[in-house]
Each structure stands twice: as structure tokens, then as C-alpha cells.
């Protein structure tokens, strides 16, 4: 529990005066994301601690370097939670139920990368839960935007602007979040199904006023999670099982499944092999020949009803009721970003190369020239000396 804001500000000012670039690092659990980092490390993980938590107000404020598990433990004491289910990654991460794992993931990194878990379509994203934040901009100024109340429309929304900006717009120092009560009851249904049918069913169920909080297709089965008042969950389970082949999962297996989905430790993600090779790749001359290097994980954020593309050499996992689709390809080298973008556009959405592949090339869906120009000007407005995470989001950013 320590406040390092002054030191962090000084480091920023120093970097600006020296003409250095900074690479913001929180728990260092998401260094695989975005383009390869440049610059001097600016370590934020020491700047941690919950500053205030008012369960009755549904508001928590914490320093950016606070580990997620610390925040979730504090919330659990009051039967509350982060409703956006942030993934918890970590290098020493042993797969299993989340209470058993130790993850380095921090609140700041979660917002900077806009990471949200399976409940996102129904409960909102980390961006949706942000109420306000502290930011050190590229002039070394300590600024505050938003607030610690539910509604605030004074000034531009610089707080939510940070979601997914990958630290390119400044150093997040504190975040105020809306927190929510934990659901009284959670149950999961599973039913074998083809992917196309599952996408239709997910959307049909999402259009009903039922306590749905997860809808995922994986390995030939549709998983549906229901969370809320006990009576509502029980009644929905009864209705949905009566008219389908869906079966109730045992609670432990179900919880394990959703945690592994959230933290990307299901075998599908092949996380270990991809990351292991990335580490090797850094100092291996025989990069191209490494089989595992060619594995890549693509993330498609698309219209939830979009048809699945024609057969492609890779495996799919469909989450977020159809709106987030993961594709694991064996040979990233043969799959160009342009090809994936065409596929994403056909699904009315966008794609990013989430893990693996060549991180020196572009890894995010391309922007139109007009939007690129706006984003470059916006970056300059917050970071005129281009000190923060240069090139992490796009080559031109």
C-alpha cells in the first residue's frame, strides 16, 4: 500500500526532459498484447492500494498498480464484485479455479487494455464501470477526470477514453469504479451443438428477459450461465431444459470452466505454448522454424449474429453471446492481417492479433485515414512529446 505518484510524475518529467520514451509496466502480465514495447520501463506495480471503498455507494477507488485479486478479495467481504469479470493473467499462473491462482494483473493494466470477461455483454466492460481516474499526462501534470459518483457529465470523458488505449494517452494513476453485488445464485447449462446453431441460440436467449450472464460455444458445446435471484435462475433453468437437450453442469466444473475461459487457460487458448515460444523467440535465431511460434490467437469483435466464416485452418471459440470470437491458427505466418481484416469486416466487426505472431508488425485492425489523423492529434494533445508507449497500439501512434 504505497503512493508513488510523485516519483512517477518525476520519472515522466525526467523522461520528457531527456527525450526518452517510456514503456508503462503494471503487473507485466499483458506484455504479450499490442505491438512490441519500446522505451525505458516505467514500473507502476509499486503504486498500489485501495484508497477508498464504500460498499453502500457501490464505488471503489484504487491505485493503478493494485492487483485485481486484492480488489476482488476486498469486494468479496461485502458480497460485491467487479461485474465485468476481468481476466487475471500471470506468468506463474497455474490453471485452475481463480481463488487458487496468483496473478499479477493490475487494475490499471485491465483498463489500459480494456479486458473484460464472459459477463461483458450483459454486465458491461471495464470501460463501462469506470467512473473517474487520475492521470499523469505527457506534460507531467497530475490530472483528475470523472469522479466517484455514478453520473458525471462535466467535461470530456477522459476516463473511459483510456480503455484500450494501451497507455498511449498517459499514465493512469488511480481509478474509481462502479462495483456490483454478487448474484445470489449461479448455474450453468451445457448442450452439444454446432457452432452455427449455437450462435443463433445465444442471440435468441439474449433477447429474452432472463438472467443470462455468459454464453459460450467451445468444443462442440454451448455453455449458458445464469446468475441472479435464486427464483429467477431456477425458473429459467427449468424452462430452458424443458425445451432442449441442455443439462445442468455440476457447480464446481461450471465455475472452473468460466474461470478458465475468463483467464484464457482453457486448452483452446494454448497460452503456454504461445508464450513460451515468444520468450524463446526473443533470443532465437531460428525463429521461423519454431513450430509453436507459428501459432497465433486472433480476436474478432463482431456483430453477435454474424455468420461464421467458411472453413479456415484453425479452431474457433465463441464467447460473449457471439460478439467475441477467438480463432487459433497454427500458422500465423501464412495468415496475413489483411486477410483477417477482410473476414472481420464481413462479420461487421474488427480483428486483432491477440497473442503470438509477429509483434513488430501491426496487430490491431487498421483505422481509416481520417480516424488515424484524429487519434494522432488526440495523442499529441495528451502526450505532446510522445513519451508514453509509442508504437504499442499502432506503428503510427
Amino acid at each position, binding site marked *: 500500500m504505497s503512493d508513488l505518484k510523485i516519483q512517477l510524475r518525476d520519472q515522466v518529467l525526467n523522461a520528457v526532459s531527456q527525450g526518452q520514451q517510456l514503456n508503462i509496466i503494471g503487473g507485466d502480465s499483458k506484455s504479450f498484447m499490442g505491438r512490441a514495447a519500446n522505451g525505458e520501463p516505467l514500473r507502476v506495480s509499486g503504486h498500489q492500494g485501495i484508497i477508498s471503498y464504500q460498499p453502500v455507494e457501490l464505488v471503489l477507488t484504487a491505485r493503478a498498480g493494485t492487483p485485481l485479486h486484492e480488489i476482488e478479495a476486498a469486494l468479496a467481504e461485502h458480497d460485491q464484485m467487479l461485474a465485468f469479470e476481468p481476466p487475471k493473467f500471470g506468468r506463474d499462473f497455474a490453471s485452475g479455479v481463480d481463488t487458487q491462482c496468483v496473478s499479477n494483473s493490475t487494475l490499471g493494466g485491465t483498463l489500459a487494455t480494456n479486458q473484460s470477461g464472459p459477463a461483458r455483454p450483459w454486465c458491461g466492460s471495464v470501460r*463501462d464501470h469506470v467512473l473517474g481516474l487520475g492521470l499523469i499526462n505527457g506534460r507531467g501534470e497530475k490530472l483528475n477526470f470523472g469522479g466517484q459518483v*455514478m453520473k458525471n457529465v462535466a467535461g470530456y470523458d477522459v476516463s473511459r477514453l483510456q480503455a484500450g488505449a494501451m497507455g498511449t494517452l498517459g499514465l493512469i494513476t488511480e481509478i474509481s469504479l462502479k462495483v456490483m453485488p*454478487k448474484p*445470489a445464485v449461479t448455474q450453468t447449462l451445457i448442450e452439444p451443438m454446432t457452432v452455427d446453431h449455437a450462435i443463433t441460440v445465444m442471440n435468441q436467449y439474449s433477447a429474452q428477459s432472463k438472467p443470462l450472464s455468459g454464453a459460450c460455444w467451445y468444443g462442440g458445446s454451448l455453455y449458458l450461465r445464469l446468475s441472479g435471484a435464486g427464483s429467477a435462475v431456477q425458473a429459467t433453468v427449468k424452462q430452458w431444459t424443458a425445451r432442449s437437450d441442455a443439462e445442468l453442469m455440476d457447480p464446481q466444473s461450471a465455475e472452473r470452466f468460466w474461470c478458465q475461459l475468463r483467464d484464457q487457460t482453457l486448452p483452446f487458448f494454448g497460452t503456454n505454448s504461445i508464450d513460451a515460444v515468444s520468450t524463446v523467440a526473443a533470443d532465437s535465431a531460428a525463429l521461423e522454424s519454431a513450430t509453436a511460434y507459428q501459432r497465433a490467437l486472433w480476436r474478432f469483435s463482431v456483430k453477435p449474429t454474424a455468420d461464421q466464416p467458411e472453413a479456415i485452418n484453425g479452431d474457433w471459440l465463441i464467447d460473449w453471446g457471439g460478439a467475441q470470437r477467438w480463432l487459433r491458427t497454427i500458422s500465423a505466418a501464412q495468415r496475413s492481417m489483411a486477410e483477417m481484416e477482410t473476414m472481420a469486416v464481413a462479420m461487421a466487426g474488427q480483428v486483432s492479433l491477440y497473442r503470438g505472431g509477429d509483434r513488430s508488425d501491426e496487430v490491431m485492425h487498421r483505422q*481509416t485515414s481520417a480516424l488515424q489523423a484524429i487519434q494522432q492529434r488526440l495523442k499529441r494533445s*495528451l502526450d505532446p512529446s510522445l513519451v508514453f508507449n509509442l508504437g504499442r497500439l499502432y506503428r503510427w501512434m
Partner: protein
Amino acid sequence: MEDQYDNDNKQDLRLSMNQPSKPSRAELAQRFRQFIDPQAVIEDSETQKPYECDGLSMYCEMPMLVVLPSTVEQVQRVMQLCHQYQLPVVARGAGTGLCAGSMPHPDGVVLSLAKLTEIIDIDPLARTARLQPGVRNLAISEAAAVHGLYYGPDPSSQIACTIGGNVAENSGGVHCLKYGLTVHNILKVEMITAEGERVVIGSDGLDSCGIDLLALITGSEGLLGVVTEITVKLLPSPEQARVVMAAFDSVQQAADAVGDIISHGIIPAGLEMMDSYAIKAAEDFAQAGYPKDAQALLLCEVDGTMEEVHEHIALVERLFKQFGATSTRTSQNEAERALLWKGRKNAFPAVGRISPDYYCMDGTIPRSQLAHVLSEMQRLSDHYQLRVANVFHAGDGNLHPLILFDANVAGEFEKTEEFGGKILELCVEVGGCITGEHGVGIEKIRQMPVQFNQQELLQFNAIKHAFDPHERLNPGKGIPLLKRCQEYRALDDSSLKTNEKGAI
């Protein structure tokens, strides 16, 4: 008015030497009439009159021209022409805003989006609607109802206000604790930039790559661009909704009851509080059955599946009684639910009946500060000799004090504004903010330096410049001009005149 436009002013000083010289108002109107229905280019002051203000009629100004394009292509050409001649542009929806956010600029063009009213598409399976900006908020839910869907944010002006205006103000409503604000309920917008370029921000997915410009545009009060199409999310209509009314002998008791409901894990669909002034006015107006001797009244709506509503309503009733409710009443059918809401929904006009004029404020506070804020407000009320009624979105801490005054009494509006300013400062003092959902506009621009320091305001200005380097989009609203920040801090509250020009 002609000379007002032709006169050189500070706007001209910003023009670079290679800008074309400004045409006269008549010449410019002629240019617009080449591609817009001639009737929809308004030059004369009589026809322009309805555009002189928004819902905050104390602030008014006449524009140079009003244009009402009927296609997006026309909007784009308007923006291109305004860019060419470096004219201020004030975009406008239904004009129901409450912060003078769409008050015209005397040298500028009012760009009304009121003719763009098409619901382009509703996709029931994907639960989205594509809308032109002039579609009324309520019309979205009406059109979606056939699919068992509706649009979440429901500002009290929803019968008239437009979705374009909702995006500009990040509008909320009584259901936003559970269902969020506009920013949580839109996926994508098409926007015309200050230069007249058409851009699409967001996607049909739940997020997009790059900087989240959608978050920045939402609530930006028309300062960053003009939105010409919006894709909104639609929600499944709940199987059932019921409301519990509870009366209390003190505001503190009612506030404690609200906290307890949330502590029990219930997020009500709506949770509203009224103080004794508001209760009496609303009951006299609506005959909803509110106990007029109560000091505070809560309306708590629970929605969802039949089973969930049944379970939670029983718990809410029990908690209200535990916290000393003097009476409770639960809606047994839709008609009764509508009746219980009728008083609250008409609270503003109801208060209008007990006073010649009223001024609606819009601060947000941590709920725990409610009793303190209300007692401080009473002290201010005594000081200024002005009555105040309070309507409160209790779930999310958004307070709407209604200051009662008489505009015909010399100096009373100025006194009211000063009182209002003090209330907003009080909100900031207890950890809240100066506006929860009405926006800053011109009305609260003097309070911006109370909530934000000079560096933060300078940062806002820098962001504005990234989109609109010549400050032509809704100039003088939302964010105080940086060179005057210090002046704002020193400004005596009463020194601002109501009819002052845009860039105050």
C-alpha cells in the same frame, strides 16, 4: 442583424489569410439553398425565434442562420461550407436540453437535425437499432416494442428529446443505475468532423480497436463533431416491473433505506426520492396517492423475470418497514404502477404550479452525503429567501433541486442563479460533481473551475483542438476558454448576464 454578421469580430481574427472572405448572410443563405430545401434555410428573425434557446429559456440568442437539412449528405455540405467560411456551428436536436447547450451563436449557423427522423433499421436478433439523429428517444422503444425490446436510457424529456441530443449530453434517466447512461447503450456513431469529413466511430461489435473515441464523443455537447447516425443497443423488455412507494418521517431514514436495499444485493430498476415540497406539489398535481405529510418519499421499481420481481419486491417491502417507513404501497398492476410514477414524472411541471418560475439544478453527490447536502441547502434557501424542492435519483446520487422564483421580480433570477451556483459548489465539496446528466452548456461553465483545475481545463481545451482547432463547433459551451480560466475563478457569480453572447 445583417451588420452583426458583417462586422469584423474576434472570430475573423482567427482566420488565416488564405480563407475566402465571408459572404453576407443573404449570400450564404443562397449558397445553402442550392442544396437544401429553400424553406429550410431560415433568415428572418420571426421564423428563427423558436431556435433562440433550448429548454433553459433564460439564456437566449439569435443566430445568423438556421438550416434544417433533410439528408446526411446535406449535413455534410453544410459542415463543409461552414468550414470553408470558418463559421460557428451549433447543432441542435429537439432543443429540450437544460443547460443552454444549443443556444445559438450570433455569428453562426444553427444546424437543426430535426428532419433526420428515420429509424433506418431494427435488428431484433442482434438487438440493435440504426437511427438518424432526429429520432425521438421514446420512438425507439415504441418501434422496438413489437420485438419485445426497448431502449434503456429514458430521460424525463423522452417524449420529445432526440437520440442525437442524448448522445451529445450522455443522457440518463430514472433507470440508469441498472441500465446505464447513453454511453453504455450505443455501439457506433457516424459523425461529420469540423472539416466536413464523414467518419464512423465504433462498430457492430462490443468494442473496437484503437482509441475509444465513442466514449469521448458521448457527452461532448456538440463540441467535437456532428453526429448523423447512431447504432443503439436494445434490451429485452422485462417480463414484469413493479414499484413500491414508501413514506418516511425524515430524509435520513429514507436515505438509509436506500443504502440498505443496495447492501442486500438488489439493484432496483429505478429508485427515486422526493422531499416534502416536491411530494405536496406532485400529489396536488397528479393525485397519485402520495402521503402529503411525509418528509421523504421513495419509489423503488424492481424489474426482471416474474420470479425475481416477486422475490425482490417482498424483500424491498420488508426493508422499508424495518427502516421506519410510515406507509408503503406496492403496485398490483400496470395501471397502479403508472399512477405511482405519475407524480414523480410530473414533479417538475407540478412544482411549476406552485411558483411562477423554477430553476432546475443537476448535481451528483455520494448518497451518504444527502442529509448534509439537504440541510446545507435549507440554510442557503433561508439565506436567499428562495424556496427549494428536491427530486433525487436516489440510486445513483443525482440531485435535482428546483429553486422556486419569480422572474418578474427584479433581481430574483440573478439571486436564483447565485443560489444554484452555491448548490453545485456544495456538490463538489462533498465529493460530487456539477452535472449528473444535464450537461454544462453555458449554464454551468462558471462552475467548471470549481470541479476542475487549470491544468485539467487546459487539457480539455487541447482535446477540443484535436477535433476542432478553430473552435467553431458550439463555441463558448461546455469547456471554459483557457485564456479566461483565471477570470472564471475570480468571477462574481452575479456578473454574468443571461443574454450574453456565446463565448462567455
